[in-house]
């Protein structure tokens, strides 16, 4: 993707398109005698440095990490339960569980032999809505990375903020529930575009909803033409095998 450059000194700048739109900078500061200091420093620079360190730590341990995102209630935790029960004994899995206040989700995932590190993001200043790279870094010492194949990072339920923060994952996947409506990819394009895989969940409810699956897929394709799409019901188990295969193909 056409991200802007990062230079050795940590500064960065964007290149305009070939038609070079004006940035409308106001240079009047010079005329009033006020001094201007050029900065050109990326605001997520610190986060991204930590994300790179997390990525290196995963790689050094031979672990693949998947950042799993969704809105609240889309079924991430139910899908993870199904995943753990099917892959137990086949793939050594660690879970990093982001939750604002409780250990409810982590409790639901206990008992499958997976190592679980809980992060209560409510303790982090301004970190109530997403996991960031330092939070994930704080969880890593609590996972036996050397004995794992795969780390699933269950992000905070939110379609906006988690898309913005690189946490050091190898891949991003999201769980979308068909109860959320067809237009969600257009309303949250950054989230839907950030993912390599969209798991379309709660497919067992399709007969009971006024949900236009073709319209949803069309909207998804507008913002992310390249994503893998899997149709799943974490509740009935339909399609969960394909999701497990997708995970195993990344190892």
């Amino acid at each position, binding site marked *: 993707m056409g991200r802007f450059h990062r230079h050795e000194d940590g500064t960065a700048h964007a290149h305009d398109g*070939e038609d070079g739109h004006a940035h409308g900078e106001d240079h009047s500061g010079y005329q009033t005698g006020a001094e201007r200091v050029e*900065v050109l*420093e*990326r*605001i997520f620079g610190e986060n991204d440095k930590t994300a790179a360190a997390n990525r290196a730590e995963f790689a050094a341990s031979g672990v693949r990490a998947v950042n799993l995102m969704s809105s609240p209630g889309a079924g991430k935790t139910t899908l993870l339960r199904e995943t753990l029960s099917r892959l137990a004994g086949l793939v050594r899995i660690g879970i990093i569980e982001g939750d604002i206040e409780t250990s409810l989700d982590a409790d639901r995932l206990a008992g499958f032999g997976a190592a679980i590190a809980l992060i209560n993001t409510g303790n982090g*200043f*301004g970190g109530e809505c997403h996991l960031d790279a330092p939070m994930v870094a704080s969880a890593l010492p609590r996972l036996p990375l050397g004995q794992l194949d795969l780390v699933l990072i269950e992000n905070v339920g939110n379609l906006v903020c988690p898309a913005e923060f690189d946490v050091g994952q190898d891949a991003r996947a999201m769980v979308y529930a068909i109860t959320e409506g067809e237009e969600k990819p257009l309303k949250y394009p950054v989230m839907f575009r950030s993912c390599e895989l969209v798991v379309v969940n709660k497919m067992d409810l399709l007969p009971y909803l006024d949900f236009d699956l073709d319209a949803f897929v069309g909207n998804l394709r*507008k913002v992310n033409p390249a994503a893998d799409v899997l149709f799943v019901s974490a509740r009935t188990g339909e399609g969960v095998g394909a999701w497990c295969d997708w995970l195993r193909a990344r190892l």
Partner: protein
Amino acid sequence: MHELSICSSIADIARRRAAGRAISVINVRVGQLRQIVPDTLVYCWSLISEETPLAGSRIVVESVPARIRCRSCERTADVGDLPSFACAACGGIDVEIVAGEEFLITSLELADEGAGG
């Protein structure tokens, strides 16, 4: 939704770059795809900077529309408000984002100490 934590990152960078000098304006460039609400950013800045040496400084947001370039036909186009990341000209899906992901502090304007600010 995470403008508060962003403001604290901005404060860290601004303090370091200003090296003790008083700041009047922090110019920030924000791409459309960054999902930052400029008014919220400005409001959160007033909360963050209050009762610190940065109090009284302002954040000025320069918004950058999202643009894509099609790798097949080489055309560039705005992504628009109802976003589409496929090429409108040829229908190609192999596109790169050439603008709209910016999120940086471009410059600081220092307070004119002589003005008694």
